[in-house]
């Protein structure tokens, strides 16, 4: 005749339960590729400071097939990061115009415009 509440615990596989959570986990996993990629570039920067030869061997590593495979993956994940990040912005920074909130569409759209512009600038600088 007395209470005995059942205390559930969340298993470590909780995120496999629903597509929604899997998507979240993929989004969070973008951090692995982001981190790894910038770490590689920082190493490259260090190589750059060590002179042309070191830089050259760094470029050599970059063109190794495994490296290319990694970067293709990283590109996919980074783009996924971009898309999910933009999609969440209306939630983090709601904008009011007059008596109403600006709907998500324009806020998200504006970010894509900025993204495109930034990418073009980078490409142009590289190619010039």
């Amino acid at each position, binding site marked *: 005749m007395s*209470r005995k509440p*059942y205390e559930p*615990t969340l298993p470590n596989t909780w995120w496999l*339960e629903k597509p929604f*959570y899997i998507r979240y986990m993929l989004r969070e996993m973008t951090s692995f590729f982001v981190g790894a990629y910038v770490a590689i570039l920082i190493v490259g920067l260090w190589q750059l400071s060590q002179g042309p030869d070191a830089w050259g061997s760094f470029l050599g590593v970059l063109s190794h097939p495994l490296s290319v495979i990694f970067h293709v993956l990283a590109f996919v994940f980074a783009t996924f990061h971009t898309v999910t990040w933009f999609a*969440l912005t209306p*939630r983090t920074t709601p904008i009011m115009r007059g008596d109403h909130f600006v709907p998500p569409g324009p806020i998200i759209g504006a970010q894509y415009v900025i993204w495109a512009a930034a990418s073009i600038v980078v490409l142009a600088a590289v190619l010039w």
Partner: protein
Amino acid sequence: MSDTTTFTLEVLRYNPESDDVPHAESFSVPYQEDWVVLDALNWVKDNVDGSLTFRWSCHMAVCGSCGMMVNNEPVLSCKAFLRDYLKDGKGTITVGALKNFPVEKDLVIVMDSFMEKLEAVKPWIIRTTEKPVEEGTFIQLPKQLKRFKHHTSCINCLLCYAACPQVGLNPGFIGPAALALAHRYNLDSRDQGKDLRKDVTASEYGVWECTFVSACSEVCPKDVEPAGAIQEQKIESSIDWALDHLIPGRKAR
């Protein structure tokens, strides 16, 4: 009801006096086009087993009592129509207690932790001086109301707590609904208590535990947008923290 279609209602049951873990029990229930899951549960309670235990009251999606996991999604059972889960009125619907809470019995959860968190965020208007009644109401422009109105719609149904993995992973996390409510008061033009609330909302049990899963806002039946409320508070509290550390003396409130 002669040739009624029946479907299977599979309920995760837990009786603290005889069970150690919940177990599933199936009931065969007549299908009615207009019925919601709550109606089916009431049918079972009335006709099959009076000991089946669940909370409900309003049957109109506003009292917040009847949240449960239906087919593993947190929903208000009084707004979960059978027809949306079954094909031709046939099939199985599973029902269980809301996730991330201790289970008292059957579908009834223990919600003490939420009540404590709710109280902790000081969900009331805080003012340095009270306005006398004789002076009438405050002026609040429609756009000032609009700014926080959606955050006032929370019915404390706790679906968001069941959906948020961080609630399950970190029991101390104040959680989506309570944090949204704190934000609601912070944004209210009549309130002056933001700073007091921040001691709680910007603590390590507050907004920082949220990893922006957004499941809370997805399952919220009242469009409260707790995910947004939390991120806005992260930004604001971060700016606040930075100013506290940059401007000498600001911190001494």
